[in-house]
């Protein structure tokens, strides 16, 4: 394999470009269409350019309360993000030493990741239904349901985000140089100091990555929420409901807004990661070199 690019390079590069186009093309189409003029329909051509459909979304005309769903999703996403980061990092640390049930926990996490979402969702719904029945039978007055955004909904999302977090932690610690911690211990650091001043700064870029996964996966999660969220809906659920009823471009405007939130989160996370990595390099420590 010399320096000259072979013909297969160009064939594969073209294939890759086609794949990227396939990934982004349709999305770009609806972003453009969301600026459709007031008389425009669901497809091209554009009938003028306007922000009419965005204002319709904000006004909530004809659509269920999108603003509330938006806020709910945002709140849930943030809570899921924090819990995912905290639980994944602590579980990741725990997995470095073998402990009882480590293998079991690992396989449960993998199973949770690949379990068809509808089954998890149904299971959680049943669990809470039975719990409600039990509470009502034991005589609680006026009890309605334990199901809700931050009980069953939160749980459903965590079964989806935690395995990702755990796998990322595994990838980090497989490349982590344990001698750094030994050095810290030898210098008299307490376990907490070692974690706070040695381990955490090194893994921080990846921890931000876990947070990114935690938030975006929760923000867009649909299948697991479908049965487990209780009486209120998250934004993706509202969106899915709208696909069957809405025939105007306001659904595209909503899609553009939702994606905009995703993109803001993605890019700010990526920038934070880049800044952190640059800082590690600038400080000239060899600490970051053990990592990707």
């Amino acid at each position: 394999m010399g320096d000259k690019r072979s013909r297969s390079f160009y064939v594969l590069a073209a294939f890759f470009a086609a794949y990227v186009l396939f990934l982004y093309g349709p999305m770009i189409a609806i972003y453009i269409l969301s600026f459709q003029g007031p008389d425009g329909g669901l497809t091209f051509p554009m009938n003028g350019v306007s922000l009419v459909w965005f204002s319709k979304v904000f006004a909530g005309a004809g659509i269920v309360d999108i603003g509330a769903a938006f806020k709910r999703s945002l709140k849930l996403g943030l809570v899921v993000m924090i819990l995912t980061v905290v639980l994944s990092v602590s579980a990741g640390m725990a997995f470095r030493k073998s402990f009882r049930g480590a293998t079991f926990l690992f396989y449960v996490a993998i199973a949770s990741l690949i379990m068809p979402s509808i089954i998890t969702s149904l299971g959680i719904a049943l669990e809470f239904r039975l719990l409600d029945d039990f509470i009502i039978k034991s005589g609680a007055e006026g009890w309605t349901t334990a199901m809700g955004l931050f009980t069953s909904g939160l749980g459903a999302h965590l079964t989806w985000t935690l395995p990702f977090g755990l796998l990322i932690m595994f990838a980090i610690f497989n490349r982590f140089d344990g001698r750094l911690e030994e050095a810290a211990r030898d210098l008299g650091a307490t376990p907490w100091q070692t974690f706070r001043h040695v381990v955490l700064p090194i893994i921080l870029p990846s921890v931000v990555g876990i947070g990114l996964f935690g938030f975006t996966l929760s923000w867009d999660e649909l299948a697991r929420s479908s049965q487990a969220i209780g009486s209120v809906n998250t934004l993706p659920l509202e969106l899915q409901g709208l696909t069957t009823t809405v025939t105007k471009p306001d659904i595209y405007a909503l899609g553009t807004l939702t994606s905009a939130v995703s993109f803001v989160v993605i890019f700010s996370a990526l920038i934070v990661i880049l800044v952190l990595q640059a800082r590690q390099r600038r400080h000239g420590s060899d600490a970051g070199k053990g990592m990707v």
Partner: protein
Amino acid sequence: MMLVFALFFLLPLVFVTIVSAWDYNEYEMLPAFSLRGYTDTFEGCIAELPGLCTILKTYLKTLKLCLLTWGLTLLIGFTVAYFLAFHVRSKTWQIVLSLLCTIPFWTSNVIRMIAWIPLLGRNGLVNKGLQGAGLIQQPLEWLLFSEFSVVLALVHLFTFFTVVPIFNSMIRIDKRLIEAAYDAGATGWQTLVNIVIPLAKPGIVIGSIFVITIVMGDFVTIGVMGGQQIASAGKIIESRLNALQFPAAAANAVILLGITIMIISALTRIVDIRKEL
């Protein structure tokens, strides 16, 4: 973490299994042992022999969609991963291009599905383009809300799950092995079949597990892109739930779970997941 999984994953699975063997009436479940959930599911199956009853037809259709999606995602995923791993030389470009593939994964699936509507609809870009080129007279009806659009959307959404593990396996392949193969006179194709594919097998298997389990249980993509007209294993569960027939839904979930576990255990015979991380 164990607690979270126990409360929201293991316990629910136990309940699904238990409730699947409960009795039910029009509006609530009755905690008494009954196999009605299962018998209702397979209603009419024996009477209709040798023809296939609805439930078997549905499962066969799900399997068919699953196989189509699996084959396509694997083919595309492998090619993309191969390009990234072997033809992109600088690390920076590798990261940039991988991110390019990952960003859509962090955005909403529903929106990525809706995004096909202006392209594939009766007055969509594809139909307009083909009509403009004089290739067809009538708009193609099978582009949207059909099995075609379902598979297209599934491939669009989930190829990412094959790219990542295959890429991960591929960058660990020692480049010298490939050069050695070339030096020994192997053609590009022989190198691919005899060296790259066997060494990338763990990634291929892991990617396959992801895609198969997602598609088997999917009801959202099939619902939206199939115009709520195509039945699938996941959709059966959903419609049973909407009818508040929890034991029947649970029975279907148990069946689906059984099938999924069979496929996964067949695949994990080939590779040990834990070793590959």
